[in-house]
Every structure is written in structure tokens, then in C-alpha cells.
């Protein structure tokens, strides 16, 4: 246990034997030592299933931890020119007493066990000495490993030597080998590693025959540890956290779309699409196969399903399987769960900055210009388009030179008919209060939407090619185009509503 070793790799705590760690100062060698030692050590040392599970967890965690900052931390504090912020780390490295203490404390039961066999294997050491003396260290070690296996097998053929003993013999052999290799390549007088082998006999002498007892004590302790683990709330909190995030992707895109969550939700959305609302689409060829486009649709329902269904229609029916990002009004994000869920499924808060950024990457952007006015319209006002905002979507199209495809969605306006709750909403300082004939009266059951028959009609695109970017400031032109889009949707809505025989067919 030397200062040098600790300073060079603070992660050695993950290793299980301090003498081995100090004999293997070079990180390049250690992986080999670990991988060869660990699997063999496990069955003998940890018979309890729980303990071995805990061990496995530790192993899987170890490379993750080591991957992250180890090199960065150490490199940076060694070379002062890189960045000096890491004085904390350098403190830890240069202060052996502070860093030593916890390591020594965390390792005691396993320390004496490898030592005693080492002395008994002295003859084997000398046999493989010439191999370890090769110039380059890491190949030599691996070669020596291969050679070392043979004599070990040969030396213990008698039946009373149990598998445990054999494994331990192998381990100690490996330790000595590593130590030797370390000694060969350390002409540096500051390196204290060379001292380690001299310490070994002393330790083995005091270790005596108590290996077995120490081992048993260790396993008992670990079993106890893992039982008390299960008794803590933290264990369950961790499990809960894992379950809660099971369906979440490692990363989201810059607007919060989570592919994995979308994939999980897809069967449900598809069921709503095909079975519950039996959505049929018309004129989907009006959406171009490539390039940016704005879909402009009517909006209704206390729960904004229309964005989801529009996205599902494009995903399922469009030949190019175009993904849709739709702009949802602020109020969606006020509500817990719903706001986050819609965001992870592809909704983005409606504002010019977001829309422009989305269109820059040539996506299909869905807008619902009616906004809250559309969502809060009463059942009697269904399929009567509200004011189309102040034409923000038209300005957006003019500024980004994007064609607009008007979309008429029939059926959505009956799924969650709203009761007039204007005064209540004002009282609660919310844009709307989702009170429908069924919600909240029937509790969660009231959230089940009405299985009305839906149809989504994509109308021929309205091009803005004839105008330049400055025309976005031309209020009259914006108003005229806005009216054109609105009229197209309204006409289609009227025609479709007249055509259908009932709400459900």
C-alpha cells in the first residue's frame, strides 16, 4: 500500500486485495490481473447467492466509474498547464493519510488470505522466473500467465486438494508473477513497489492458519450486509427509480423527444388510432415526401389527442413515414404528467423561436392555430373554427418560406366535449378546467375518450413561394392568407361532417 499507487489510481478501492493492488502499479497490467483473478475467486469466497449478486453489481459498476474521470482528473492535476481547477483531486492524491484510511478500513477481511500460500509456492516462482524477466511487461505477463497455469495444475493433482486450494494457489502465483514483473521494470528509486515482495513473508507468518475463519467471517458479514441492504429505504428507492425510468431513453433530442418512450407508447397510440377511433385519412399525398412543411389543423378536446393522432397518421400512412413535431399550447405544460408525456412524444411548446428552430431541420411541424380557444370551445360550437390566433403560423411560413398544408380533423371535437367552465377557470387562474360530462365525475374512467369515428383530411398545400421574407410584416397579406387557410379547413370540415352518417360510423 504505497502512496504512489494510491495517487495514480484512486479507483483501486474496487479491487479486492490491497497487496495485489500495490504489486500492480501499472494500469496497463491490472485489467489482466483482475479478469483472471475475479471469476476464480468468486465461487470460493462468496457462496451466498445474495452476496454474489452484490458482487456482480459492483463489477458492473466498476468500469463505468473508472471510465469517467479517472484519466482526466489525474492527467490534469499532474500537468499544471492543462487546467488547475482540480486541486481537490491533487489534495486527495498528495495526502496519503486521508486517502489511505478508508481503503484500509474497507478491505481488512480479505487481506491475509492470499499471503500464506505464496510462501509455499516459492519453487514455482523460480520455475517461471525467466518468463517474467522478459523486457516488455504486459505481453510478458500474459505469457507468464499461460505458462503458470500448467505447473499449478500439475502440482496439485491429488484429490484432497480442493478446488478452492487450487484456485488460491493460482492466485498467489499470479500475485508473485506480477510483483516480479513490476520489480523488473522499476529502476526508479522513488517507486516503492519493489519493497512489496520483501514484506510478504512477514505477513504470511502472522497470517497462519486462520484463513478459513477469516473467510467465513467475511462471508457472514457480507450476507448480513446484503440483508441490511434490503432493509433500507434506499434500496427500494433505487429499485423504484430503475423501474420508473425503465422505458426512458438515455438521451432526448434537443426539444425533449424520447425515442424509447415513444416506442413504448406506440402500441397504445396505434390501438387508439386503429381500434378506438378507427381513423381514416384522405389526401395524405398532399404532404410532400421531403422538405419542411407546416400542417395547420383544427383543435379540440380537453386532452389534446389530435396532435398524437396526426403524428400517428403520418407515421403509419405516409409513404415517407414522416415524423411530426407539433406545437402545443403553454397550458399543456402546466399540467403534471401530461405535459412531460406529450413533450417526450414529440410536442413542443408553441412559440416562434421553437417553430423556426424546428423548421430549420426540414421537419413536418403541426400547428393548431385555434390554441386554447379551440380546446375550450363548448360542444355546441364544435367544428366552428375559432379565430386563428394573430396569424403567427402564417408569418412563420412566410419567414421560413414553408408551404402550409391545411388539415381538417373530424371526430376529435366529440371525444372530450367540454362543459362551459369559464368562471371557474378564471377563479383557479388556469386557461381551462377540463370538466366534461364524464370527467371528473367518473374519476379516471372519465378520462376515457368517446369512441367517435375520426377522419383526417390533408388538403392541397398553400404555397408561399410568391412572397418574399419581408411580406411577413405585411399584416394585410398575413390576414388574407390566414383567412384562406381557415376557409379551406372550414369547408372541408363542413363537407366531412355532412357526409358522415353518425358520430360513430
Amino acid at each position: 500500500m504505497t502512496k504512489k499507487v494510491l495517487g495514480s489510481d484512486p479507483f483501486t478501492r474496487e479491487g479486492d486485495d490491497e497487496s495485489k493492488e500495490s504489486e500492480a502499479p501499472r494500469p496497463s497490467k491490472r485489467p489482466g490481473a483482475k479478469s483472471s483473478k475475479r471469476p476464480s475467486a468468486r465461487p470460493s469466497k462468496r457462496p451466498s447467492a445474495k452476496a454474489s449478486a452484490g458482487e456482480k453489481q459492483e463489477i458492473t459498476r466498476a468500469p463505468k466509474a473508472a471510465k469517467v474521470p479517472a484519466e482526466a482528473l489525474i492527467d490534469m492535476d499532474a500537468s499544471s498547464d492543462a487546467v488547475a481547477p482540480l486541486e481537490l483531486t491533487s489534495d486527495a492524491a498528495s495526502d496519503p493519510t486521508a486517502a489511505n484510511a478508508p481503503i484500509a478500513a474497507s478491505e481488512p477481511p480479505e487481506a491475509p488470505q492470499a499471503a500464506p500460500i505464496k510462501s509455499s509456492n516459492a519453487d514455482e516462482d523460480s520455475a517461471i522466473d525467466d518468463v517474467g524477466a522478459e523486457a516488455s511487461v504486459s505481453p510478458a505477463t500474459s505469457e507468464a500467465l499461460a505458462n503458470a497455469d500448467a505447473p499449478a495444475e500439475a502440482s496439485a493433482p491429488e484429490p484432497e486438494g480442493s478446488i478452492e486450494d487450487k484456485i488460491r494457489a493460482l492466485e498467489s502465483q499470479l500475485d508473485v508473477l506480477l510483483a516480479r514483473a513490476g520489480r523488473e521494470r522499476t529502476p526508479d528509486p522513488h517507486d516503492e513497489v519493489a519493497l512489496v515482495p520483501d514484506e510478504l513473508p512477514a505477513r504470511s507468518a502472522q497470517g497462519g492458519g486462520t484463513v478459513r475463519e477469516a473467510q467465513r467471517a467475511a462471508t457472514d458479514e457480507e450476507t448480513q450486509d446484503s440483508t441490511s441492504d434490503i432493509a433500507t429505504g434506499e434500496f427500494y428507492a433505487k429499485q423504484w427509480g430503475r423501474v420508473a425510468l425503465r422505458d426512458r431513453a438515455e438521451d432526448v433530442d434537443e426539444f425533449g423527444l424520447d425515442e424509447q418512450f415513444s416506442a413504448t407508447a406506440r402500441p397504445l397510440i396505434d390501438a387508439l388510432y386503429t381500434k378506438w377511433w378507427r381513423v381514416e385519412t384522405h389526401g395524405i399525398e398532399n404532404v410532400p415526401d421531403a422538405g419542411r412543411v407546416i400542417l395547420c389543423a383544427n383543435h379540440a378536446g380537453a386532452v389534446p389527442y389530435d396532435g398524437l393522432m396526426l403524428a400517428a397518421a403520418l407515421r403509419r400512412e405516409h409513404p415517407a413515414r414522416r415524423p411530426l413535431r407539433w406545437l402545443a399550447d403553454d397550458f399543456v405544460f402546466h399540467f403534471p404528467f401530461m405535459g412531460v408525456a406529450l413533450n417526450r412524444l414529440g410536442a413542443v411548446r408553441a412559440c416562434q423561436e421553437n417553430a423556426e428552430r424546428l423548421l430549420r431541420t426540414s421537419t413536418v411541424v403541426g400547428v393548431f392555430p385555434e390554441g386554447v380557444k379551440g380546446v375550450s370551445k363548448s360542444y355546441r360550437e364544435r367544428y366552428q373554427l375559432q379565430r386563428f390566433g394573430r396569424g403567427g403560423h402564417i408569418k412563420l411560413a412566410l419567414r421560413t418560406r414553408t408551404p402550409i398544408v391545411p388539415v381538417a380533423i373530424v371526430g376529435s371535437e366529440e371525444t372530450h366535449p367540454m362543459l362551459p367552465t369559464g368562471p371557474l377557470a378564471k377563479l383557479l387562474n388556469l386557461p381551462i378546467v377540463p370538466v366534461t360530462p364524464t370527467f371528473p365525475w367518473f374519476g379516471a374512467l372519465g378520462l376515457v375518450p368517446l369512441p367517435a369515428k375520426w377522419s383526417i383530411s390533408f388538403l392541397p398545400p398553400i404555397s408561399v413561394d410568391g412572397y418574399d421574407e419581408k411580406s411577413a410584416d405585411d399584416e394585410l397579406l398575413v390576414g388574407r392568407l390566414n383567412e384562406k387557410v381557415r376557409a379551406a379547413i372550414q369547408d372541408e370540415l363542413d363537407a366531412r361532417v355532412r357526409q358522415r352518417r353518425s358520430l360513430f360510423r
Partner: protein
Amino acid sequence: MTDSTGARGRAVARTPRARRTVALTGAVGFLGRNLIGLLEDDDRIGRIVALDVEQPTTAGRKTRFYKVDLTQPTVDARMAEILAAEGVDTFLHLAFLASPTYASAWAHELESVGTMHVLNACRERPVRKFILWSQTILYGARPSNPNFLTESHKLEGNRESRFLVDKIEAEAVVQRFARQMPQTVVTVLRMAPILGPTVRNYLSRYLGRRLVPTLMGYDPLMQFLHEVDALAALKLATMSDVPGVFNIVGDGVLPLHKVIELAGRSNWPVPAPVAKPAASLLWAAQLLEAPSSWVDYLRWICVADGERARKQLEFRPAFTTREAVLDYAGAQRLRDARLLRA
């Protein structure tokens, strides 16, 4: 200033001056301390004038330390003397608290009034360049925020929070100073919350909890800046003369729950309606890292757009948000095992 100075950002060329003198306040803070270390090694810097109440530990050959307390009423005259005596070329104002404090009256004196003193000193004895450290949390977290806040967005941080208000005031007086002193290059760096292996602030303590409180049903997108990138941005601003306001952010965003999971923690969902009162109580009992106004940041989005810094300042973050979190998590594990001093 946002737009006018942003426009003339390119006009001022990069003028490498031989051996310039840099003064900085808040020299013992995380940024000041480490920036001194960086500047010590840079040949283009002749002298570093460290202004703070304590000697920074990283002070080397080039650093000259002056004990300056920004909360003292006569500090502006003393600072002007120092600026004149040392011939200061670039002034970095970094004396802002990285974490909320209970001593809000003192914090107000330090941040809001202290900035006024600093600017008065720079008026009395003009410097060529003035750099202010600011933060993107000053934009405020709200549901009406666009996903990426640009520099032209107003600073609308919660008015109830002295922690935010003092900094917003400080930035306002700096912007006024920029209009009054057109010959001074004024650069404002609004940095995303800084996270990394060694930086300690309210955020690292929040993520260092075993159970990290979150709001039930809310999972805002978060954005972080790695500590190394924060220092790199400050150095970049020191070395190149680009006036204007810049968001300095790491690439990419992560949902809060994912951040907590990457940090190896568990989240503890708290119902949103009780969160603020509970946070007030816990803050009063000194059991929480930040006052209740900070709950907004667990609920709504506050993410900034680093495009302008990329184009004009040519700042490229070396770490993404995700890498910053992972880097923090690695060091935090060592702290958990007490292998690293907390």
C-alpha cells in the same frame, strides 16, 4: 446592449497585446481561483491582480494580491487606485455567489452594490475591457419559455429570490455602463449551471443527496456547463475582444430524472402544490440547498441557446451536458466513498 453590442461584435478585431495585466474580483471563488492558475501559465498575460478578501491559493509568480472587500463603502476609490497603479487592461468581475446564502443582506451588498463599486472604479480609471460573469438561470424558469432562450430574452428570474434579483440588478448596471463607456469592451458571459468533478455549489450538493427531491409529474429539460468549459470561456473572453452578451452552455439537454439517474441517485417525487411551502420550511431549517424559488427550476424549462457564443466568440464546449453530469457523478462517487474531500 444585447443587440447593439452584439452587432458590433465582429467589428473589434482580436488585438494580441503584449503582456497585458488582468484584474479579477472574486479571486478565491471557484472560477477566480482556477482562472488565476490558467492565466499564470499564459505568456500573453504579464500580471494578474487578484482582488478579494483572502489570498487565492493558486497565486503564483505573476499574481499580485490586494485585500479588497466589495461590501465596504469606500472600496471604489481604493480599487481605482489599484487599477491605476497596476495599469490594468482587462477587468474580470467574478465576485458573485455560486450558491444561495442565508446572509441575503450581505449578498446584496456584495453582488448588487459591489458591482456598482466595481463599475465606479472602472469609470474613474477606465479599463480597456470589462468581463462580467452571469448565469442563464437569471432568465427564469417558466412554462412560457422557448426551448432555447436567446440573449435577447429578458432576464425574468423570480423576483422573490434575492439570489437572482441581485445578479439581475448587477447585470443591468453593467449594461448601463456598457452604453455609457463605448470605448470599453464589455463582455457578459451568461453561463449555464456549472457542474464538474471539483466544483461545489448548490447543484452539486442537490445531486449529491441520496434521495433527490423532484416534482411529481414534472421532468424539465436541464442543461449544464462543465467546469472546464466555464474556465475556457472566461479565458477565451479575456484573450479575444468580443463585446456583447453570450450564453455559455454545454451541448444537449437531459431530463432532470435522467440527470439524477446518471448521477447514481434516486428521485423522490414531491407533489407540486406542497413543494414550495415545504421548500420554504426546509430552507428556513437549513436543510435545503436553495430557497423555495428554486423549485421553479425543477418544474419548468430554463435552457439557453449557445449559438451566438459559437459564432462570435468561437466558443466550443468540450463537454456536453451529459458528459458534465457523468464527470460530476464520477467524482461524487469518490466523495461518497470518502476518497475525495467533500
